[in-house]
């Protein structure tokens, strides 16, 4: 029998994802698949009102129903010592006062503040029994007026959501320099301004949120199986909020995670309640969200209302930028949202442009809606949308081409310190623009427009030159901005006696292909086949430390892995030195083989691994046995991926339907480890970004604050047949901030594409602005107005 040669990994190669055959053949293992001995099931009683005082809660009928184990209300949780949900970021207002954080009980105690807010939990022997009993819990509500619109919420007549938080304003935060911005505007001869809305989105992970929690009374410890992007971070949150003795008393396991897009990063009320319940009943409790629950309570994305103004000289050089944003927080401040709307958003408002004077103000506003938090891009899409819409208007105002206005204002030298805290690491914005224009055949567009016109279609082209911040770090900077620090990632590499390798990382895969990319990179370093490498994630009993996966942090985790590889290889050099009786300095290592140039002797990596564990060929007082290396990597800066997206749309003026007929993107993700996976990430990001621009929109009834788009009948999800073939090119400027030169690609597609689409729509219709989503009804009306004007 001839053994198949397993593939060797190589950085930069399109290795197929090793996890896919398992996942697409039904062998993924998700939280809901797990049934524990003595399993019980939970169902939530949720508020049908957006804003109401809670009166009596009658659980007597439900308690008597078959299979019911226990029913918990908000008061039970308070009595049981469960802490309220915290804001995970300390943001200060302009006047120096801390953000006003409304008390967020995991189960509402006296007031509900958004539709779907959990009020009680029923635990029963089966899922069906839990649901039936939940239907029989009667809650008295005294309905209060509700508010959805942020301007209205700030007004004098608005209902107040939280006691002691007047005007529903959580904070008024600013960044930049107001005086310098004013001076720039005074100097400027040309200006453009814009009021825009960044539409609220529902995240729609394929796997809904789920938890299975098990309490062990004998030692006061708990295991939580949780679908989450950051299991290690959740260990800390749950340990503190439940009041467990220490981190060591809580194990958090996240098995396969079916998508997150940011929505599986917060610490949620429901999961906390289920963990509390498991302790209360002394049996495992499982909850899996129904799709409607996902719509109502998975942290939503975006929802900004922004006014922005750009000052220029006569040649269209950007002199100053002023931005004022109302950020809808929802009924409470979700875990990371104070960060998302401030340092993940306003810091990026300059985009790719060298704008010397900037001032941005963000007001965080409570409304009777689902809490908002990170969603694919988390603040950077909102920033790119503002500056790229302004750039489009600037080109119109000055009367120059869309590409030319950008070219005139690009940052050209790196590192570039922006006036908004961050310092861009590397880039070649003009080269990237040219690459995108070539890819899109920009020069041939007017011919395509004329050809479309002959067919009765309005064709438009839109550009977007985005830059974003990935690989979040360093810890010290983030702590100084209001976070808890801890923005490193760890990687432990264990080489077993037989030469197989176990990789333990605190990053957690939820669709990024970590099993493939970690194995690919380590395979190349060690010169061993990829199938000899196992990537272990998502179990806090196995992985000591880490910070999870969000904001394209693969570069941080992989950097830690590479450094651990170097430590292993270096130790191997010493072991081989003893084995061959030569100085370790004379031992070379390449493609899995240690060689001595002097003697021509060789030792394979796997032989060295065996020797490390046997510990018989070297003095153990001088060299420790075993072969394990751990690295904590704290990046010295963010990475700043950037790119240019070119979108072409055709609008049918008879129906108002906008079709994206071409979409091309040239992106700088730094060095690309696996182009196949990166292209997949870009395809997904572009799809979500195009969907935000054209279809997706979470709509609350303005009077009752009922979520009107709470199912796939009413919420416009993107479909493959609504999208063009994407044209992609990489234009890498490797980052100096990590050893691999990688920047990150997970969010880029969703950041660059919405302004590219809307710029194209505006170009097609010859209008200044249309708010997202550019749905057919809205566009049809604009076409009618256009027709009348002609």
């Amino acid at each position, binding site marked *: 029998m001839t053994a198949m040669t397993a593939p060797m990994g190589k950085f930069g190669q399109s290795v197929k994802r090793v996890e896919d055959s398992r996942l697409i053949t039904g062998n993924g293992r998700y939280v809901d698949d797990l049934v524990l001995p003595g399993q019980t099931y939970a169902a939530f009683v949720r508020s049908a009102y957006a804003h109401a005082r809670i009166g009596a809660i009658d659980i007597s009928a439900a308690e008597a129903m078959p299979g019911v184990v226990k029913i918990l209300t908000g008061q039970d949780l308070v009595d049981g010592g469960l802490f309220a949900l915290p804001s995970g970021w300390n943001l200060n207002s302009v006047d120096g006062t801390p953000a006003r954080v409304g008390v967020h009980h995991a189960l509402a105690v006296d007031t509900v503040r958004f539709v779907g807010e959990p009020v009680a939990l029923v635990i029963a022997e089966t899922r069906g029994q839990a649901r039936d009993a939940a239907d029989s819990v009667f809650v008295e509500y005294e309905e209060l007026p509700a508010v959805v619109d942020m301007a209205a919420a700030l007004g004098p007549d608005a209902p107040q959501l939280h006691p002691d938080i007047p005007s529903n304003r959580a904070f008024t935060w600013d960044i930049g320099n107001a005086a310098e911005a004013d001076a720039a505007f005074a100097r400027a001869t040309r200006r453009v301004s814009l009021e825009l809305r960044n539409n609220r989105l529902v995240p729609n992970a394929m796997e809904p949120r789920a938890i299975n929690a098990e309490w062990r009374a004998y030692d006061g410890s708990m295991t939580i199986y949780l679908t989450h992007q950051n299991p290690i971070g959740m260990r800390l949150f749950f340990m503190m909020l439940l009041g467990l003795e220490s981190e060591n008393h809580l194990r958090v396991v996240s098995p396969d995670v079916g998508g997150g897009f940011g929505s599986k990063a917060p610490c949620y009320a429901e999961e906390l309640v289920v963990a509390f319940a498991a302790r209360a009943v002394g049996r495992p409790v499982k909850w899996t969200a129904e799709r409607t629950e996902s719509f109502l309570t998975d942290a939503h994305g975006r929802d900004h209302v922004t006014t922005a103004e750009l000052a220029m000289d006569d040649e269209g050089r950007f002199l100053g930028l002023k931005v004022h944003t109302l950020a809808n927080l929802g009924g409470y401040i979700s875990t990371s949202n104070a960060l998302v709307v401030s340092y993940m958003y306003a810091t990026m408002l300059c985009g790719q442009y060298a704008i010397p004077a900037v001032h941005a103000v963000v007001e965080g506003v409570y409304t009777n809606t689902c809490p908002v938090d990170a969603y694919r891009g988390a603040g950077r899409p909102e920033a790119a949308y503002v500056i790229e819409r302004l750039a489009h208007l600037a080109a119109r105002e000055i009367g120059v081409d869309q590409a030319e206005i950008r070219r005139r204002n690009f940052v050209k030298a790196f590192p570039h310190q922006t006036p908004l805290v961050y310092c861009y690491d590397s880039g070649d914005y003009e080269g990237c623009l040219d690459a995108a224009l070539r890819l899109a055949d920009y020069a041939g567009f007017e011919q395509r427009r004329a050809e479309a016109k002959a067919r009765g279609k309005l064709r438009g082209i839109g550009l977007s030159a985005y830059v974003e911040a990935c690989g979040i770090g360093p810890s010290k900077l983030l702590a100084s901005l209001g976070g808890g620090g801890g923005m490193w990632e760890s990687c432990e590499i264990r080489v077993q006696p037989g030469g197989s390798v176990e990789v333990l990382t605190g990053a957690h895969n939820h669709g990024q292909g970590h099993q493939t990319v970690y194995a690919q990179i380590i395979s190349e370093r060690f010169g061993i086949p990829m199938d000899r490498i196992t990537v272990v994630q998502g179990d806090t009993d196995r992985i000591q430390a880490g910070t999870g996966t969000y904001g394209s942090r693969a570069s941080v985790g992989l950097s830690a892995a590479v450094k651990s590889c170097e430590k292993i290889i270096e130790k191997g050099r010493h072991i081989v030195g003893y084995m061959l009786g030569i100085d370790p300095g004379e031992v070379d290592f390449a493609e899995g083989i240690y060689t001595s140039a002097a003697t021509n002797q060789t030792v394979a990596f796997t032989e060295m691994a065996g020797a490390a564990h046997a510990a018989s060929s070297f003095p153990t007082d001088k060299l420790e046995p075993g072969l394990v290396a751990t690295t904590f990597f704290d990046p010295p800066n963010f990475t700043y991926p950037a790119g240019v997206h070119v979108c072409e749309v055709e609008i049918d003026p008879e129906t108002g339907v906008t079709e994206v007929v071409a979409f091309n993107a040239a992106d700088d993700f730094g060095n690309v480890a696996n182009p196949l996976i990166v292209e997949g990430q870009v395809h997904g990001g572009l799809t979500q970004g195009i969907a935000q621009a054209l279809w997706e929109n979470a709509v609350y009834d303005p009077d009752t604050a009922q979520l009107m788009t709470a*199912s796939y009948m009413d919420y416009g999800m993107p479909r493959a047949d609504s999208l063009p073939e994407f044209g992609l090119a990489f234009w890498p400027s490797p980052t100096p901030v990590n050893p691999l030169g990688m920047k990150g690609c997970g969010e880029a597609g969703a950041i660059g594409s919405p302004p590219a689409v809307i710029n194209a729509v505006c170009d097609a219709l010859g209008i200044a602005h249309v708010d997202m989503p550019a749905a057919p009804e809205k566009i049809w009306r604009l076409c009618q107005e256009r027709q009348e004007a002609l």
Partner: protein
Amino acid sequence: MEFTGSYLLPCSPETAWTALNDTEVLKSCLKGCEALERTAETEFTGKVAAKIGPVSARFSGTMRQTELDPPRSCRMQFEGQGGVAGFAKGGALVTLAARDGGTELTYVADTQIGGKLAQMGARLVEGTAKSMADDFFGKFAAAVAAMEPDASLAAEPSQDMSPPAGPSSGVSSWLMPAVIAIIVAAAAVVFLR
């Protein structure tokens, strides 16, 4: 959400008025109605049990009549609670007018819905309300025909008189906007499970 509709009843306006205020008649025509009581001169409460497929739920509602002008018109305020299924509340104006061969009943109801009822979307609410209401009115027309002393009017009921314009279910009564909303709440649970 606005519901409008009209229906031709095979009876005089006086008979229709009487029937629409007769809780026993309404109860017998309304599938799953467990209780329908007059709690005061112009106030009613009701309970409807709906079991559709594996889901059963119980809905309770209240209705208060205002601006009574028998047998011509009446305004009302109503509110229905369906537990997890959500709630419906609103106001309605119902008018009765003598027509050849009977009485035309017309209603305009403005309804606010909440919870699952709102989340499922208007199109399902309307469709379900219509089928529930058709069922009710088939029985109600037969009931008023039996009550009608003038035999010339107690003929087969004709179908919808007004073609639906915009959102329209088909039918109503004093209690119907409230009752329909409550029933739809029950249906909503099934669609959303």
